[in-house]
């Protein structure tokens, strides 16, 4: 029975544990000192015993995972999302070491292409796939950055856009980290300098790129599942437009478009095009895992590739929950599919065996002050009760039977909830019911807990729309 080292924390660690359990695989969990009270630690101890849980210094230190993997004789490492997930050097190291370990994700060569936004854009351009206008190679100094920024501003002024803006992005960034908006060329140098310094500390890489910011758009995603045997299928689309000011997703919806709305474009045609382009890129690089292709859609229906996430995503569950394979019940666990693929299994189904049923909405419950720039809230949660329904799946690392202090080193995420409905209207009704029934209390030295529940309720009315 292969043994998996789960190189991540919180909710995704719990999802991986669940997938391992259902696949009959053994696992080892890790945690940092700050995460001692997390439910992922408790679950691992309850399921596998104390000897299956190890305290490490950081989730960003590859040597920690390798040392624990060797000590416990693991066969594979699941990186989850974030941290080392898109680090091709880590994946390559696993493959070429004396005692090789399976990296549960794409081959390192693929990661090298898609782990960097700059490389991804180059591949897309080569294949004639539209990308967000902006830089597509490393920028070496502030003067060069300023020239590119001026060009992007001029184009928007020529188009008559009243409040043009550009985004300065970390090439290696993900999860909304390392993105800053610039609304006037004069701000560029300061933002460029600050962002480079930030991304160097967070990702160990200073490459940044500049892109045009669209004032109104929808952010859609295509979920692909590809095996090591050349099979490739899609699991439909998601709409992830509802985000925080830091561009972290807060509500995700599957499918991406509501066919009852009147768009200025044909949503079926745009969806088809996004899927075709995604499969074309996957085929070009020989993609061999689960992955997400992210797209910007303008109100006129223009499609631009934003980036590729060569990993499982927070929101993969929302696609899985509306998917049916052959005669099996609705609901596919993409974490399980990812592990099966990495262990060399064939998919066992083709595109024609996949169908989509109903609609699904995912909410990210976060301790943050949405009225104060999404300021993260830190403190102790004293009461945490979430409702239970057969149409609701909740993943959380926050215990409900004892106080829990939110660690200051990570995002203050509290739970991930996926609501399913026979159609989008039913999913929205159920989503509102879920949000209304959450009971949460907490405090720090200054005030009571603040969460994004009201923000989620308000934005739920606007999902899949252009605003």
């Amino acid at each position: 029975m292969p043994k998996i080292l789960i190189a991540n924390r919180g909710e995704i660690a719990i999802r991986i544990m669940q997938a391992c359990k259902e696949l009959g695989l053994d696992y080892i969990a890790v945690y940092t000192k700050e995460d001692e009270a997390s439910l992922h630690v408790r679950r691992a101890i309850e399921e596998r015993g104390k000897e299956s849980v190890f305290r490490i210094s950081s989730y960003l230190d590859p040597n920690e995972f390798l040392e624990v993997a060797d000590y416990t004789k693991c066969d594979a490492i699941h990186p989850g999302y974030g941290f080392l997930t898109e680090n091709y050097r880590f994946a390559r190291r696993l493959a070429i070491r004396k005692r090789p370990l399976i990296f549960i994700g794409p081959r390192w060569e693929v990661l090298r292409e898609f782990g960097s936004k700059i490389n991804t854009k180059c591949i897309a351009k080569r294949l004639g796939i539209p990308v967000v206008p902006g830089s597509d190679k490393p920028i070496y100094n502030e003067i060069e950055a300023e020239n590119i920024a001026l060009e992007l501003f001029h184009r928007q002024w020529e188009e008559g856009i009243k409040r043009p803006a550009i985004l300065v992005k970390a090439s290696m960034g993900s999860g909304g980290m390392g993105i800053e908006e610039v609304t006037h060329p004069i701000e560029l140098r300061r933002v460029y300098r600050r962002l480079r310094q930030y991304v160097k500390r967070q990702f160990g890489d200073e490459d940044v790129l500049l892109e045009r910011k669209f004032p109104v758009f929808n952010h859609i995603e295509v979920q692909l599942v590809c095996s090591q045997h050349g099979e490739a299928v899609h699991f439909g689309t998601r709409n992830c437009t509802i985000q925080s000011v830091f561009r972290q997703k807060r509500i995700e919806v599957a499918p991406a478009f509501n066919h009852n709305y009147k768009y200025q474009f044909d949503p079926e045609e745009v969806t088809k095009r996004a899927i075709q382009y995604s499969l074309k890129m996957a085929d070009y690089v020989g993609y061999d895992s689960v992955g997400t292709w992210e797209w910007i859609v303008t109100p006129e229906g223009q499609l631009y590739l934003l980036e590729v996430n060569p990993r499982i995503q927070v929101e993969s569950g929302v696609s899985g929950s509306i998917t049916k394979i052959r005669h099996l019940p609705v609901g596919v666990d993409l974490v399980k599919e990812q592990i099966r693929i990495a262990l060399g299994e064939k998919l066992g189904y083709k595109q024609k065996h996949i169908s989509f049923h109903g609609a699904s909405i995912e909410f990210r419950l976060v301790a943050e002050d949405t009225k104060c720039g999404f300021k993260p809230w830190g403190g102790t949660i004293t009461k945490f009760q979430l409702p239970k329904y057969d149409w609701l799946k909740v993943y959380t690392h926050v215990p409900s039977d004892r106080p829990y202090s939110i660690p200051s080193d990570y995002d203050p995420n509290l739970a991930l909830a996926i609501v399913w409905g026979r159609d989008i209207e039913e999913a929205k009704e159920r989503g509102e019911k879920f949000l209304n029934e959450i009971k949460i209390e907490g405090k720090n030295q200054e005030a009571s807990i603040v969460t994004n529940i009201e923000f989620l309720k308000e934005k739920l009315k606007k999902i899949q729309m252009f605003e």
Partner: protein
Amino acid sequence: MENIGEIIKKYKANPFEVYPVLTPHTGYVHLMVKLGQTVKRPIDPWQQKGGTLLYTILRQGNLKRIYAPIDGEIMDIKRELDEQFVEANTYLMSIRHPLTEDEIIDKILSDFLDIFRAPEAAKYYFVPELAKKIEERGLQKVIIQPGEEILIMSRMKRDIHLVYEGKPGIIHTVYFRPNVTIPEGEPLLGICPPERVSFINDLVQRIRLEWKV
């Protein structure tokens, strides 16, 4: 300044601090000291030469030598962990450290300086412009002004630039280390207004004199 004598008396009664020694990461440890042994911290700027080797830790073929971070005497050593695989942050031993005159001065001064405290539990760094000034001129030669960005608070993956809002002053003491999470309310900087520099210097002189008595 009247109660200085009392404060010094308190420190003289128990001029020690106990430093726990924890493993920095996972690996196999090999203990190199014994209970009761006197240890010395390295004396060179690179923290390598002259110090007492406390233990080695082997991880992925890399042997790391861990020297005493401070002078003192070993107490409560976990001999059962010798040659064993350990997790990160595993307690190995404690060092009983006799406080030096300068350390006593730093501790006492914290009551007399304007303390800039950590607004939230986070990691803190100087903003690059200020770090550069400190590197060029030295710590106690840089005056910070109200409205000036002085620190970066890195918390929950976000960087927040902290603006200094007190009176103009020199940074007398830095209490934080980069890359280490500082709990909320802990001191980060000890700031001294320029007009109080002579008072602080007098205070330091007085502590030195009384400490020797």
